[in-house]
């Protein structure tokens, strides 16, 4: 029996409106047909993240929230992640890697390449001889004059 080309089955007809998933009505119920969709995930209550934590995050990440949208984004991300708590993981070990059953490959401790100082320094903006140059360290992050972050402004 020649198998019909799938293209023919989609020919002509009106463009259907974008619709949500529908049950395969009219099909015989067969064990191998895709079944109905699972239920929508419930949204849990969201805990507001304190300004202290937000500032702490900015400091750890050295990235700022910039505006309320950024903070809102984090709130939504946490709310989304909270769905994990619906899953029962009693007695389940965390999985670091899908290759956990194998031995990690370790090379012999022999030098096989290197001596590329020049190439590596080429990509740095500020160098002195063979050194990368950094501004002074051990100075806590202080906001520059006139450049309050969004969080500071909201305090």
């Amino acid at each position: 029996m020649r198998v019909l080309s799938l293209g023919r089955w989609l020919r002509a007809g009106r463009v259907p409106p974008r619709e949500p998933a529908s049950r395969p009505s009219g099909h015989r119920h067969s064990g191998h047909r895709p079944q109905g969709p699972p239920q929508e995930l419930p949204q849990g209550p969201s805990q507001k993240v304190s300004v202290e934590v937000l500032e702490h995050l900015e400091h750890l990440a050295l990235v700022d929230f910039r505006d309320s949208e950024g903070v809102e984004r984090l709130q939504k991300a946490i709310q989304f992640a909270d769905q994990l708590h619906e899953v029962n993981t009693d007695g389940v070990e965390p999985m670091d890697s899908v290759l956990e059953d194998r031995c990690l490959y370790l090379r012999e401790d022999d030098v096989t390449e290197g001596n590329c100082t020049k190439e590596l320094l080429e990509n740095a903006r500020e160098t002195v001889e063979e050194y990368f140059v950094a501004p002074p360290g051990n100075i806590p992050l202080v906001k520059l004059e006139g450049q309050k972050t969004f969080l500071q402004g909201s305090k």
Partner: protein
Amino acid sequence: MGARLLGHALRSQVSAALKEGRVTPTELCQRCLALIKSTKFLNAYITVTEETALKQAEESEKRRKRGQPLGILDGIPIAVKDNFNTAGIETTCASNMLKGYISPYNATVVQKLLDQGAVLLGKTNLDEFAMGSGSTDGVFGPVRNPWSYSKQYKEKSVPKSHSEDEEYNWVITGGSSGGSAAAVSSFTCFAALGSDTGGSTRNPAAHCGVVGLKPTYGLISRHGLIPLVNSMDVPGILTRCVDDAAVLLGSLAGHDPKDSTTIQDDFKPFELPDLPDVSKLSIGIPKEYHAPGLSSEILSLWSKAADLFKNAGAKVVEVSLPHTRYSIVCYHVLCTAEVASNMARFDGLEYGHRSDVKDSTESMYAATRREGFNDVVRGRILSGNYFLLKQNYEKYFVKAQKVRRLIANDFGKVFGSGVDILLTPTTLSDAVPYTEFIQEDNRTRSAQDDILTQAANMAGLPAINVPTALSERGLPVGLQFIGRSFQEKQLLTVAKWFEKQVQFPVIQLEEAERHDNGVFQHQKSASFS
């Protein structure tokens, strides 16, 4: 109709053409470069390496003249996603953070391709740092799906009087390897590298009507692939047919001493049977993949595909992967956590953008990162850091790792019960117009679009998108096959069989036809068919 040269399949047609001297590597390279120029509006390429490509083509030609080609890929034009390091060539990850960064080395997969004589045409566009599902969030602008300009799509669109409306109507490629998918789909190259962390190769493959292969985690080296999620990233392969994907896989797979997460087993490149037989296989249909929002069109195609296998004698069974719906949540936590760690290297000291601020190291780092990263990247870094805080570590990060094991176990149980291959949709719908896509933010979109592809990354399994049919709107729709770990041969065999059954139509792209015909007229060479 004689097949156009640039539309040829790599292995069966263009490689043969090169071997028999019906076309030279230089001619091939020139045609591809010209087509890239005339399809610039797609914005698929960030960097086009015209000079080096022509040089590589020249070298290939010399080798072929001496009768010493390096292999099947010698002289074949390819493109590489711009998050793979390429020596001497800018690698940007579509971010301000790496604009102007010239890689000092080749990623292992790039080196392997070059060692076999492939001609590197350029670096393709993506979402910034591969974060996204539309290829719309990079600093070089969005990639346009070539099918937006196809006869098939235009015919199905409501007739417009202005060309402006056509501009308005273009659809996305999907992401994040949208540039690579568009490059292959529009015939500018014969194969392209992408990356796949949550579906970033399979999603654009489905929307652009090309084959997108995600290999098993640990099979192909990640050395030189700028990492997103170390425990899930893999290099992805985009081609126009399954046989070509097998060729690329054969050239790239295998242990790499520079990537300790590659397995040490010997990898034997394989050729796929011409007439694959699926009658002895068991195909699983996971019911949870009938996700909310799945279009009725795709649902119908999925059903018909299942019937195809049944009629061919395969055993087709419904199976259950109960934790599927948590996969995307789990991914969200693990991905942001690993991203927070991986993005820490961008501080402006050794490479990449560096801010002018010089009061202190920390203020320089902070300013550099504020200037270099877009909102999406910064958002993920902040979320990731939140989940990794001491007070949240067990509750979120470790919890997600436990859920990951449950997801991986789900697959293990199903494959252990005798199922060989899973058949699922790749995307919830065909490609949406750009103007519609950007109505929702990146995180929401990613959560929606990755839902069907993500779990395979969670479990490290190989998966492939095979273009299946055109939608009512004239756009490609693909279906996904997921296989057992390291069983790419079986996976690709099934994919090839399916590909033969569905006979997915060739894109009718005015630009490519016009260009190819024009060049033909100047050649006196024999026809290609």
